[in-house]
């Protein structure tokens, strides 16, 4: 299972600012009544995008034509907090996002996103606000996520961006989905299982 080596992501951005944007916000639970991830893209941020009363679009960046081509999401601290539901990054990926910039990420969400090959980079609050301002002013501004060198460039300016080494390594080496490697070690797995009383008895 050779995977693409994800050393960089390029595209345009969309600011969805705010801290603690949780998984219920990203994909409301009622859309998880399904047995596949197909079609989840259209429900990403559904309640952020549409009015409860009549289903009409809200005045939000996600409904703004200027950002319709955006593939890089820009947000705040603790993005993806809450549930372990992979439906959240799956819906973002299927909506068209290929990278996320935020001040910090909730751990399970982060892991789920990397396993889909969607880099999640952390930047300082100041830099995120500056990038969001640039993108708001010019939605066509090119954003370049350089996973390899841990930086993000917007309009010719470089910003320091971080990502844990294991995730960076997995992305750039094309091993962001670990299943192939996990399957290689079945003899060692059985050996460990044999040492655990509660498994072997």
């Amino acid at each position, binding site marked *: 299972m050779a995977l693409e080596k994800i050393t960089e992501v390029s595209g345009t951005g969309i600011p969805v600012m*705010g*801290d*603690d944007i*949780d998984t*219920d*916000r990203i994909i*409301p*639970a*009622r859309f*998880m*009544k*399904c*047995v*596949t*991830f197909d079609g989840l893209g259209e429900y990403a941020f559904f*309640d952020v995008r549409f009015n*409860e009363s009549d289903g009409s679009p809200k005045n939000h960046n996600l409904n703004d034509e200027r950002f319709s081509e955006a593939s890089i999401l820009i947000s*705040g*601290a*603790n993005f993806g*907090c*809450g*549930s*372990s*539901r*992979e439906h959240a*990054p799956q819906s973002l990926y299927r909506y068209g996002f290929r990278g996320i910039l935020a001040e910090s*990420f*909730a*751990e*399970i969400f982060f892991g*789920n996103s990397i*396993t*889909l090959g969607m880099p999640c980079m952390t930047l300082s*609050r100041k830099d995120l606000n500056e990038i969001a301002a640039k993108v708001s002013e010019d939605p066509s501004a090119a954003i370049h996520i350089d996973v390899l060198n841990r930086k993000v460039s917007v309009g010719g300016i470089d910003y320091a961006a971080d990502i844990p*080494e*294991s*995730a960076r*390594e*997995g992305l750039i*080496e094309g*091993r962001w*989905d*670990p*299943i192939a*490697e*996990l*399957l290689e*070690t*079945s003899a*060692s*797995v059985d050996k*460990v*299982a044999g*040492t*655990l*009383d*509660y*498994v072997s*008895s």
Partner: protein
Amino acid sequence: MQDKPKSLFEKVWEAHEVGKLSDGRSQLFIGTHLIHEVTSPQAFGMLRDLDLPVRYPQRTFATVDHIVPTDETNEPYSDSLADAMIKELRKNCEENNVTFFDVTSGKQGIVHIIGPEQGITQPGMTIACGDSHTSTHGAFGAIAFGIGTSQVRDVLATQTLALSKLKVRRINVDGELAPGVYAKDVILHIIRTLGVNGGIGYAYEYGGEVFDNFTLEERMTVCNMSIEGGARCGYVNPDETTYEYLRGRNYAPKDWDTAVERWKSLCSDPDCEYDDVVNIRAEDILPTVTWGITPGQAIFIDQSIPRPEDLPEKDRGTAEEALEHMSLEPGKPIAGTKIDVAFLGSCTNGRLSDLQEAARYLKGRKVADHVKAIVVPGSQVVAKIAEEQGLDKIFTEAGFEWRGAGCSMCLAMNPDKLIGNQLCASSSNRNFKGRQGSISGRTVLMSPLMVIAAAVTGEICDARELFEIGRSAA
């Protein structure tokens, strides 16, 4: 020479580590895998696509909890999507020889309630489940955490996961909790103190006199909400309370004495080093309620709703958003806020002791006329014992609806939902916008006793005053 002192987390991790992966992460053996209908069907689908079998079917246990209706038992369910999900899980379990605690088994319930109840959850295990509240099982001294669906696939196919080792933060709560202060208040206070993202990268080890004295069910309430503080797992070292809870349960080890000896050896060594230590005084904790849209936006019941300008700059944006959503007035006391719905249940507070404590104070009282009140036992076993003890009668005579087991209004994937901007006094774990099934619905998290008090008075209030708790002895 003596080995370096280690924490339980390190010992359990080392015992389950298969090796290092090329990206530097560990391959960790997962001894116990729990699955449910929402996050597993796609994983079984991935297995089929890859033509892979379930590697250790005897180490996966399934139940159905998120989508089950609590007022309807006959299938097909009126919600065809929910009906398709339960059938899919049933089929996947049958085809792969996975034990399924189905709705007809008498053992079905919320996955984090039935694991402990059946004795499947034990000290020293690694436990994973496609649900963030898997941290609950840490109450037994297990390393237990939530995983995504691709990881459910990994466990089904290999019984292992690729993971980075966590740091360990020891949280001591010493002293004695005042009457009317519960485990729920302890964890809401911890989250409020350390922040909703304070635990990122950490496992929380809870200890101190309060945890020594806690029952296993109280420990579960605290560990359950570790994830709301950002910590993927939280645990308590096992002790006599743990062993007594497990003794005689269906899946308890047959060679009991050997198991207990092994469990004792897994406890954190007294002089082990932690990456961080936090000390909290039990006396500083009062009944706690949330006022906002994250579990960290919490105050004591006698406090006022904060003014954004009084908060640290970084918290103001979310606070303003929260106040707008909650329609609460900054500076006003939270007590006296009218409620519309009272929900008692969930993997946080849907266990027998929660229902017993609530019923003890509810007995002979009535739910306020304008309040819709429901109690949802965490499992069929909890429901059965509660009914044998007559708790259901106490609840129904007071005006609560007595329901079947499931996750219910904690996340509203079944028909139990808030309507419009109803405000719910809830014993659950998340107050996110839209969490309880209505986009404009409002959730106030609190202990079961505080839910009962709010149901009776029709407003958020101090249960200690209403029920005269901690007064008589003075």
